[in-house]
């Protein structure tokens, strides 16, 4: 189905304004940092001076004497310094510079600042490991007690399809390449903030948190307070961006604030500064990737082997990121023999964690260049090679999953190629004069929608029709800026056939609904709304009964459209929804349904990475056009055409918004964002040094939205949040090559790397 607009929807496919837009643009929205409770005090953390050190002596006596200081807690004052996960709330052995050696609560931010500075700490520096190679060296110091090496064993994921040795033997050409990527910061506009309120009416603790996963935050708070989960209430006000970053980082500060609140019996706010946010929140994992492929003379891929190691930083709980990596490592190609090994190692760097794409963007950057390098070695046009090998309907993926649903890669690629005049430009740009050289690059990818076989992609929601015909949505997933409130309102509007203005989804309160899992994996719309649709359908059925009585007909003869019930055999006979709801309510009935969606079992063997990894896949093609100043190395990304199979476009405007943001973020990942950690120390702790694209740097963006008929997601939807950014690295790298004839195999492609063809290390790397 070409582009969008051929599906017959009433409320979907419509670019209605975001339901939260007015409050946000007029400054009315109240974020967590805006919440001030009576008697509230301020909490903060003292971070380690060293990336790996033992606290020899910590003297808080001076700080304690400062008037207005309410509490100072060090390792020995906290009953449970280690969290339920591997992370430390407060520690006496710092494993990275974001580790915390003391917690303070004080009357004002100023006093807090003074108190933190008055704490005297004497450290014993410990030898650290910072690169993957250092961490895996035989005599490397081991970061975590009880571990035999720095390898995070549960993060080792494998794919074993066919027999790669046989595949290589049958190949006419074998190509091997190495690639590398760096840390990437989320750069959400709102730094992490929490307010913990020891409110006995609601249990042991209520915490307002900028949480991407409020139920997950609840687990940390219950853990540190050593209370039952039902004693903790997490309320999620609007979140100003998360991209995977507001998971464990928010859990940790929520727990710390809760502990300080419990001890002082005062509400405690912790609002991170940008520097603290950059120190504590997880970054996109830096990857080292080795690729090996075998092809026949006529350009058929026979075998691919990928060995990938990720730099985890000091702590990590995201072993499943490498499930995602393994499934996508071989790219959107059909290859009979595939072997993938991916695992992470602990280092004394800041923590790596989820970051828009969940460790797929790194592999796409590598594999999309790699396929072109293979094609070139073969003497084949890269696009021809990709056309020949990419996934098609009926293909078997690297996990041997048969793609039975539509695979519209062909259509997407050909549309983009034609629209950008890719083939002519690609040929023409290979020979240019002058220092400024143009380049065009293409990347394709596919992305498993939702959690797939990572874990059960289940979630629940409650739809309540009130007595005046307005609807309340309760859902466990959160709007973190991606527009979930709007998308959910449109989905309920479509199901019930009522206007979006009649629907309200306030956000998450963990006391109001069971845990629906995390708002991650671009699962919110495609999978998260499965329960919503069913709950709304059931509400409609309930109301039809009351409507039938009022219309004096059978329930089967009643239909609801545009907030009006009518008789199918006589549409003139009608009654407003509102009247039906009123009657329904006053006759002792509730038009309210809670529904838990539990997806069908998947057939996937984690030990060999074979089976149905995801219910379905979204397909992407991105073409980037650049101008490279070959005398300075400056890469100007001029135009990006980003085409996506979204299944069903719930709100085309919001999709364009997602893609625009994804393109900018991908541009940062590809050419600008250089997160500098030197021996574990972060040198880019604010946006004066960590360079992201400004509105003037962001290219002209052409977003192409494709739909198709795929039954897997709610109303046929697919993921878009992460697909919108993950192909950018590969597309830009290929464009740089087209312009300069030189490959950048280590991101970011900053001015030094593009000019010199290598990374320039500060101080020579000493």
């Amino acid at each position: 189905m070409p582009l969008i607009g051929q599906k017959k929807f009433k409320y979907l496919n419509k670019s209605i304004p975001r339901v939260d837009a007015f409050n946000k643009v007029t400054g009315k929205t109240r974020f967590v940092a805006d919440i001030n409770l009576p008697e509230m005090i301020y909490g903060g953390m003292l971070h380690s001076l060293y990336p790996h050190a033992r606290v020899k002596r910590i003297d808080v006596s001076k700080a304690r004497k400062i008037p207005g200081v309410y509490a100072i807690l060090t390792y020995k004052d906290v009953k449970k310094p280690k969290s339920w996960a591997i992370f430390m709330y407060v520690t006496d052995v710092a494993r990275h510079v974001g580790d915390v050696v003391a917690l303070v609560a004080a009357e004002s931010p100023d006093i807090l600042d003074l108190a933190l500075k008055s704490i005297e700490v004497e450290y014993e520096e410990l030898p650290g490991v910072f690169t993957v190679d250092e961490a895996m060296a035989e005599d490397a110091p081991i970061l975590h007690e009880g571990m035999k090496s720095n390898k995070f064993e549960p993060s080792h994921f494998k794919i074993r399809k066919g027999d790669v040795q046989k595949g290589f033997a049958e190949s006419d050409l074998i190509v091997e390449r190495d690639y590398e990527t760096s840390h990437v910061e989320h750069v959400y506009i709102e730094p992490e903030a929490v307010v913990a309120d020891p409110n006995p009416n609601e249990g042991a603790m209520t915490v307002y948190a900028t949480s991407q996963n409020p139920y997950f935050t609840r687990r940390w708070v219950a853990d540190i307070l050593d209370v039952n989960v039902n004693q903790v209430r997490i309320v999620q006000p609007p979140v100003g961006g998360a991209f995977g970053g507001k998971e464990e980082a928010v859990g940790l500060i929520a727990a710390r604030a809760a502990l300080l609140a419990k001890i002082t019996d005062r509400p405690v706010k912790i609002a991170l500064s940008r520097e603290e946010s950059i120190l504590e929140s997880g970054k996109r994992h830096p990857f080292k990737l080795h690729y090996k492929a075998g092809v026949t003379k006529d350009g058929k891929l026979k075998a691919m082997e990928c060995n990938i190691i990720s730099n985890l930083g000091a702590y990590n709980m995201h072993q499943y990121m490498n499930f995602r990596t393994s499934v996508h490592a071989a790219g959107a190609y059909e290859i009979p023999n595939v072997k993938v090994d991916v695992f992470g190692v602990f280092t004394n760097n800041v923590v790596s964690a989820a970051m828009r794409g969940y460790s797929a963007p790194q592999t796409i950057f590598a594999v999309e260049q790699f396929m072109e390098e293979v094609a070139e070695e073969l003497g084949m046009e890269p696009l021809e090679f990709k056309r020949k090998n990419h996934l098609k309907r009926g293909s078997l993926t690297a996990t041997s999953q048969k793609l039975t649903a539509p695979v519209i890669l062909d259509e997407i690629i050909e549309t983009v190629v034609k629209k950008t005049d890719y083939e002519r430009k690609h040929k023409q740009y290979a020979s240019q004069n002058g220092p400024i050289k143009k380049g065009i690059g293409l990347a394709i990818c596919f992305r498993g929608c939702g959690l797939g076989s990572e874990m059960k992609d289940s979630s629940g929601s409650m739809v309540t029709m009130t007595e005046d015909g307005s609807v309340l949505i309760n859902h466990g997933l959160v709007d973190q800026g991606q527009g979930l409130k709007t998308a959910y309102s449109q989905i309920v509007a479509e199901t019930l056939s009522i206007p979006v203005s009649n629907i309200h989804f306030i956000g998450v309160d963990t006391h109001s609904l069971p845990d629906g899992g995390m708002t991650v994996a671009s699962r919110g719309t495609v999978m998260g709304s499965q329960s919503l649709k069913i709950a709304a359908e059931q509400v409609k059925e309930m109301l039809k009964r009351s409507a039938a009585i009022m219309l004096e007909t059978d329930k089967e003869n009643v239909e609801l459209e545009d907030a009006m019930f009518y008789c199918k055999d006589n549409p003139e006979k009608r009654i407003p929804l509102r009247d039906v709801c009123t009657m329904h309510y006053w006759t002792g009935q509730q038009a309210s349904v809670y529904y838990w969606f539990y997806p069908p079992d998947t057939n996937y063997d984690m030990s060999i990475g074979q089976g149905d990894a995801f219910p379905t896949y979204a397909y992407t093609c991105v073409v980037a056009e650049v101008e490279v100043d070959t005398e300075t190395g400056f890469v100007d990304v001029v135009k990006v055409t980003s085409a996506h199979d979204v299944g069903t476009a719930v709100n085309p405007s919001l999709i364009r918004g997602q893609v625009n943001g994804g393109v900018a973020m991908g541009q940062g990942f590809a050419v600008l964002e250089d997160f500098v950690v030197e021996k574990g120390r972060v040198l880019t702790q604010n946006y004066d040094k960590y360079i992201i694209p400004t509105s003037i740097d962001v290219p002209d963006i052409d977003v192409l939205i494709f739909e198709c008929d795929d039954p897997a997601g709610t109303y046929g939807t697919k993921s878009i949040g992460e697909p919108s950014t993950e192909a950018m690295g590969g597309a830009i790298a290929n464009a740089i090559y087209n312009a300069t004839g030189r490959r950048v195999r280590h991101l970011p492609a900053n001015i030094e790397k593009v000019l010199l063809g290598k990374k320039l290390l500060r101080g020579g790397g000493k």
Partner: protein
Amino acid sequence: MLRFDYLKAVSIDNACELLSQYSGESRLIAGGTDIMVQIRKDDERLGNMKYIIDIGDVCELSYVESEGNTILIGAGLTHKEACSSALLKENVPFLVEAVNSIGSPQIRNRGTFAGNICNASPASDLIPVLVALDAKLRLKSMSGERVVEIASIFEKPYKTTISPDEMITEISFKKLPAETGTAFVKLGYRKAVTIARMNVAVCVTVEDGVIADARISAGSVMPTPCRITSAEQILKGSRPAENLIESAAKEVSKEMIKRSGYRWSTEYKQPVIEVLTKRALKKALGVE
């Protein structure tokens, strides 16, 4: 964050009084675009600062005038005001280009000329231009006034020889001869809100087809801002030509290595400062 008291000056004289009274423990603030950042991160450059003296509303510091052959600029002129000055645009277009590339519109609205000079950042976009113009600074204190060459005040990055009780009141420079072309070329990591990785300011006067005068100054290249006279000498007295420009540019990088040493970044900076110099010279000469 650093703790300090706030004092407001209502005039230049008043500011000088306060500087004298709190000598050594006070700093001036005008736009605050640098000092506010330093305060926030407890920058050691602020030392034992106890007072901030606000001269942001001293309007006698805000002017651009022409007096005979000289252009006079009040120390408190903001970058934004400079960008909209017809006098500066006409006489020293590269100065306007340079300040227009500083930070963001918000920074340009607040930041002032003297503030930029006193911050003495090696990556300043304004200083290389003023150095190329041989600008003079008028410094005032309770003990009197003195006028110094701008290039003479820089001791090392972020450190000037302006004494703690002195303030810059005026920046002045001679107008350029009519046959002079100017150029400012900057390279940053991105296109806007960017600190110069390197920049170059040049003015070249061509009389009867011969380069009568050339001035070259570059940012983030030399230990302290200065004109690169050995490169200027190569150009002077000759007719503009590709190979001449090439050798002048090479001389700039040679001088950089001679004065700053061969550092980890030189592998990149050497070829690129040559390119930037070439581009600036060509632009000033109108050959490209």
